């Protein structure tokens, strides 16, 4: 069945550089450097990436960073907790806007 998202596109990510190689090189160099171990370990960075992948709901990133997390030694309990962190921030972001609603409603209400 035709879909907009194709799992077979994931390993072809580098093809995005075919018509704009310089920008792609800058991006991929940066991307690679971000995931190098630094103050955070590679394992911790993969867990953050997994959480962000769920927040932005990118199926390619979810596929890729599920595997990456397991390969960095994380387990499903840790990965599920990471997604709850993303969920809490997403949910909190909606809820905090409720104050905007309340401010507006209060201003125009008797």
């Amino acid at each position, binding site marked *: 069945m035709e879909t907009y998202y194709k*799992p*077979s596109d*994931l*390993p072809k990510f580098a093809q995005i550089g075919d018509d704009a190689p310089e920008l792609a090189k800058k991006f991929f160099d940066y991307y690679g450097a971000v995931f190098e*171990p630094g103050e955070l*370990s*590679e*394992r911790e960075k993969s867990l953050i990436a997994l959480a962000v992948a769920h927040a932005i709901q990118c199926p390619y990133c979810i*596929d890729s960073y599920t*595997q990456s997390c*397991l*390969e*960095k*030694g994380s*387990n*499903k*309990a*840790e990965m599920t907790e990471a997604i709850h962190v993303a969920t809490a921030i997403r949910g909190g972001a909606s809820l905090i806007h409720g104050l905007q609603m309340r401010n507006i409603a209060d201003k125009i209400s008797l």
Partner: protein
Amino acid sequence: MTTMDNMTTDTEPFSLSLERRGLSLKRAKLMTLQVNTGLLCNLACRHCHLEAGPARKEMMSAATVQQVLAFARRFPFTVIDVTGGAPEMNPHILDLLGGLAELTPRLLLRSNLVAMSGALREKLVEFCCAAKVVIIASFPALNEAQAEAQRGKGVFSKSLEVLRYLNGQGYGQVDSGLELDLVSNPAGAFMPANQEAQAHRFHELLHSKWGVIFNNLYSFANAPLGRFERWLRQQGNYQGYLAKLAQNFNATSLDGVMCRRLISVAWDGYLYDCDFNQAAGLPLGRVPTHISKLDILPGPGDAIAIADHCYACTAGGGFT
């Protein structure tokens, strides 16, 4: 059908992959004798390439034990590595270890930990302490669910209990001379964690959460053979996993792979280049040869039987 299977086609055969890169896999100086005591095991781990388990009857006999000892007397080895199945379940294990301890400076005993129980444990560990046998224990994950998905229910806490017992006997303790190493295999069709990072985390968490100490941790990929291969195929993961191993091929790992310096003897006395070839039924020199009949050891430059499962030993950090 999984994502990975949708993404991949058949992987290039391992032999062609070496050829294309202008590489070859040949023997170096032989250092290690690996002895498989049998396929009987108290566990039936889902990643086991030898499909060891409680129903298996294959066991090294007293006569073969004597032939192994005669072989090790004739050809001295720097390292002798005793494995299974669960070596603890072979009734001749103390005869084998006792004989081998006098013939090599470094004797290794591989254990799933859980088999190190009951009446034999005290006697066995007492011997291991006296002979300074290195214990290499399977401990796949710091997470109970992951460990037990691979090894079976109840194994995690029992393994910790045996590790603490071994620590109590001096194993893993500084300056005791009693080396306790752990082996971690991924709980599924994915690559193992970086060994150094994994070791750091295991040291930290095993000590802080459970009061366990150890010396070294080895992090190895699962070989797509036996029970693990069947699971991969049933789940539609086989091609994806093989492709992943092939994508992670690391030419520098070739120098250190175990088959270059090891000879593996199966429970029935027949010889192989390694434990994985034993599971794949690929005999040493391509012709079944019994340990009692081998007059000349394989040496530098000799051929090694290879197949696609060899991708597991050459991926990432490699399998040493």
